[in-house]
């Protein structure tokens, strides 16, 4: 960028005028959807921060230290506007709308010198483009954060270990089992076994949509780990299609006890714990 650029000068001197036309431009571009009041403040701060950054920092280096204030303002702007339901494109458009007012100001300043004007406009475009792209980047980053947070939340939510009876735990699995999830499932199951001193754990896979060799292997690992700790596992909730898939794949579930439903598995668990469910004495209805 040319050292003699007039950009910082214009931004500093005509800041107020620029802001006004910029805001008018924005509300025209978005057909009045954007709230002027909320925008004016960050826009003014941006215009204030820009000249300093331009004088000290390099236009090519928007990540540099001199641009920190500009980045802050833009990040804040992008964050608040996305929260209000604006798309990343709209936020970027917001920044891009400064182009026309800025170019007009440059034209007035430089006048007839076409070469100089072209150069200045090129610089200004470069600047505005970078700023716009930066807001998009920030918006994307915010989205990614939300996604990864939701993933962890889902992971935590989806692995509850419930106690069915004294010494009998159940682990209802819902959704696809991948390595990461198996790890979480395994850890929470083993921890719960230690905590509750349960001797039997029922892994219910009714909610697992597909069982392939990998999933089967993960299940077997969990069962093996629980066995090493001294707890037996029963796998339940195997649907007919899944049973035939397992056989077709040639997966050997070994000597792991399997049952069709959670109720069957629970009955087995009760029997192994020397417990029984019996019908209570019939209620006396004759009197009524």
């Amino acid at each position: 960028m040319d050292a003699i650029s007039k950009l910082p000068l214009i931004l500093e001197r005509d800041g107020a005028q620029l802001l006004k036309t910029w805001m008018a431009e924005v509300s025209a571009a978005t057909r009045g959807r954007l709230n002027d009041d909320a925008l004016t403040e960050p826009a003014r701060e941006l215009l204030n921060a820009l000249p300093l950054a331009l004088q000290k920092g390099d236009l090519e280096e928007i990540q540099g230290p001199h641009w920190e204030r500009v980045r802050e303002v833009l990040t804040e702007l992008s964050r608040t506007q996305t929260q209000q339901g604006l798309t990343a494109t709209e936020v970027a458009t917001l920044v891009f709308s400064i182009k026309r007012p800025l170019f007009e100001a440059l034209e007035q300043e430089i006048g007839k010198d076409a070469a100089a004007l072209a150069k200045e406009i090129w610089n200004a475009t470069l600047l505005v483009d970078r700023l716009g792209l930066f807001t998009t980047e920030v918006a994307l980053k915010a989205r990614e954060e939300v996604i990864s947070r939701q993933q962890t939340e889902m992971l935590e939510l989806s692995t509850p270990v419930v106690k069915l009876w004294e010494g009998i735990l159940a682990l209802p699995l819902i959704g696809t089992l991948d390595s990461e999830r198996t790890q979480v499932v395994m850890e929470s199951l083993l921890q719960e076994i230690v905590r509750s001193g349960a001797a039997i754990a029922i892994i219910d896979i009714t909610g697992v949509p597909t069982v392939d060799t990998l999933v089967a292997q993960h299940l077997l690992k969990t069962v093996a780990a629980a066995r090493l700790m001294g707890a037996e596992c029963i796998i339940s909730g195997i649907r007919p299609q899944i049973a035939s898939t397992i056989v077709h794949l040639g997966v050997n579930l070994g000597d792991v006890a399997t049952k069709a439903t959670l109720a069957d598995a629970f009955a087995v668990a009760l029997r192994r714990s020397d417990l029984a469910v019996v019908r209570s004495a019939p209620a006396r209805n004759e009197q009524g």
Partner: protein
Amino acid sequence: MDRIPILKMGPFLLVTIQVDMHDQLAMTLQEDLAEKIVSSHARAVLIDISALDMVDSFMGRMLGTIASTSRILDAETVVVGMRPAVAITLVELGISLPGVRTALNVEKGMDLLRASVNGAERAQ
């Protein structure tokens, strides 16, 4: 040299691993245990590893070897108190200790052994 004490409790031998297990220690334990089973006519061995928080494949294999040796000498082995992290490590290492009985704690392990020794006596 360090040795892991082997305690005799009735027909059972009780081994509690309280220190960091290194290879030499494990080898010594295996030999000591085999001798002790023969000399004390023990029917079962209970190994408490609740204090063990690190295992490698050698340790995993050693547990398996101890169990096999004991079985040949007509004594059952129960490993008790394995920590979750240890269990996960062993499984990831591909060591699932087939033939080794397990229990959650010493008490449950004792119950298990008592039941199985009594059962065996009744069968004879």
